[in-house]
């Protein structure tokens, strides 16, 4: 199916936003290959998106907000307990008009409701690192630099982080393609977040100074002569290894075997 320039102009945004089905996408791509003016239009649109993303990067919310939300949720919990207790009291009063029993029952339920919540600060650092890796992987935040060439990424960050950024190169057989990279923070440390397109899926890698941020925990497996720490969280697999003082946390939606293969053959 061939598309007119008019159609292309109308759907070029849907094209860039990844909203077209594969046939429409192919038809539009074909048109762009042969039409310089639509191609220019597409490039400008693309740059506009990049400009918007660049000007509004995802920034951490103030710590005070996180605290406020926690307090507000506590209040909501307390309110709900009041309501539940009130409902129970009315219900009990109707059925069992004995004050002692009511008090006992309420006391019991109250203690159950107030029961300890498991502390959430007990995670090993690999687990929390994995959480952040997965969050970023899922969010796929805008990139500071889009490049398919690892050297270009390395150059870009050479004056931005205090360690060498060498994006892993994955074996050609895996159809892995570097997409881009951006500055990030892991804990309080500078890190670089790199994303790849692999086959139909995505792989994200946090690169950081492993001396500044030693990581413990997880299951250790051998892959490609390296010790890889392993953590599975919410269906995502995170593999962590270090080479030459640099740490790599690799997250993907690949199955574990695929991810191990990828890491084993990276260099």
């Amino acid at each position, binding site marked *: 199916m061939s598309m007119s320039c008019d159609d292309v102009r109308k759907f070029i945004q849907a094209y860039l936003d990844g909203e077209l089905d594969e046939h429409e996408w192919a038809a539009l791509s074909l048109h762009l290959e042969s039409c310089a003016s639509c191609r220019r239009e597409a490039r400008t649109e693309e740059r506009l998106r990049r*400009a918007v993303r660049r000007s509004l990067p995802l920034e951490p*919310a103030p710590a005070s907000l996180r605290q406020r939300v926690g307090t507000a949720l506590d209040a909501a919990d307390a309110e709900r307990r009041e309501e539940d207790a009130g409902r129970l009291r009315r219900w009990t009063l109707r059925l069992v008009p004995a004050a002692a029993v009511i008090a006992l029952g309420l006391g019991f339920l109250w203690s159950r409701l107030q029961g300890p919540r498991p502390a959430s600060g007990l995670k090993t650092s690999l687990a929390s690192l994995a959480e952040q890796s997965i969050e970023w992987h899922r969010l*796929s935040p805008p990139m500071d630099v889009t490049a398919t060439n690892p050297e270009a990424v390395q150059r870009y960050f050479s004056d931005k982080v205090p360690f060498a950024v060498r994006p892993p190169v994955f074996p050609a057989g895996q159809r892995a393609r570097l997409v881009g990279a951006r500055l990030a923070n892991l804990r309080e440390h500078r890190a670089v977040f790199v994303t790849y397109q692999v086959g139909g899926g995505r792989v994200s890698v946090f690169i950081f100074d492993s001396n500044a941020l030693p990581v413990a925990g997880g299951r250790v497996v051998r892959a490609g002569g390296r010790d890889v720490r392993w953590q599975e969280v919410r269906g995502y697999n995170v593999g962590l290894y270090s080479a030459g003082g640099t740490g790599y946390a690799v997250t993907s939606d690949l199955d574990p075997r695929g991810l191990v293969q990828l890491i084993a053959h990276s260099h």
Partner: protein
Amino acid sequence: MGLFKRRKQSGASQREVFEREALPHLDALHGMALRLTRDERQAEDLVQDALVKAYRFFHRFEEGSNIKAWLFKVLVNTFYNTVRKEKNLGKLRAGVELEPHRERYLGAATVAGRHAEEATLDALAVEEIKREVDALPEEFRTAVLLCDVHDLSYKEIAEVVGCPVGTVMSRLYRGRKLLQKRLHGYAVEQGYLKADAEAEPSAEEPAQAIASLEDFRRRKQA
């Protein structure tokens, strides 16, 4: 009985499930709230109100559906229902009109070749882009932010703002064209681009209004 039902889920309380699912989106929600209210204090209030509301209605959230889109929906609704009422509506609507001083050069300025313009978008200062995004009419701004900054799909955006997908496409189209036009004007003013007789970017939709993808697909079938 709700009292027992809520405690029943395998070990984890509703609070824990909610925190685990919703709080990772706090940064994104705060970012969106800040662009909606354009005020740090109001943004924090908005996020807090929205999250408490989401928590109260968490049982209505269907597991397996997109929590991020759902949270954005609660946030945007809360904004429309509360913050916007309190705020001076006139002030919020100010973004709809071009500021008069800008109108002057926008009228005269045009592009010195599209190549120059492309490069200019990359060179523009972050603050200026942010200001122009903030100045977009609210409906356009919301659509552009949800799409470009928060990576929601058209369908998710339609759900968040409560309108058909075709309307989302039209708002995105017009919002982005308007942004392009204003940034272009700024670039000329700053001397990044020289004024010239060629056409400047237009915020008008193509001759035929932006159709929804569904319409397009139907037309293709015929």
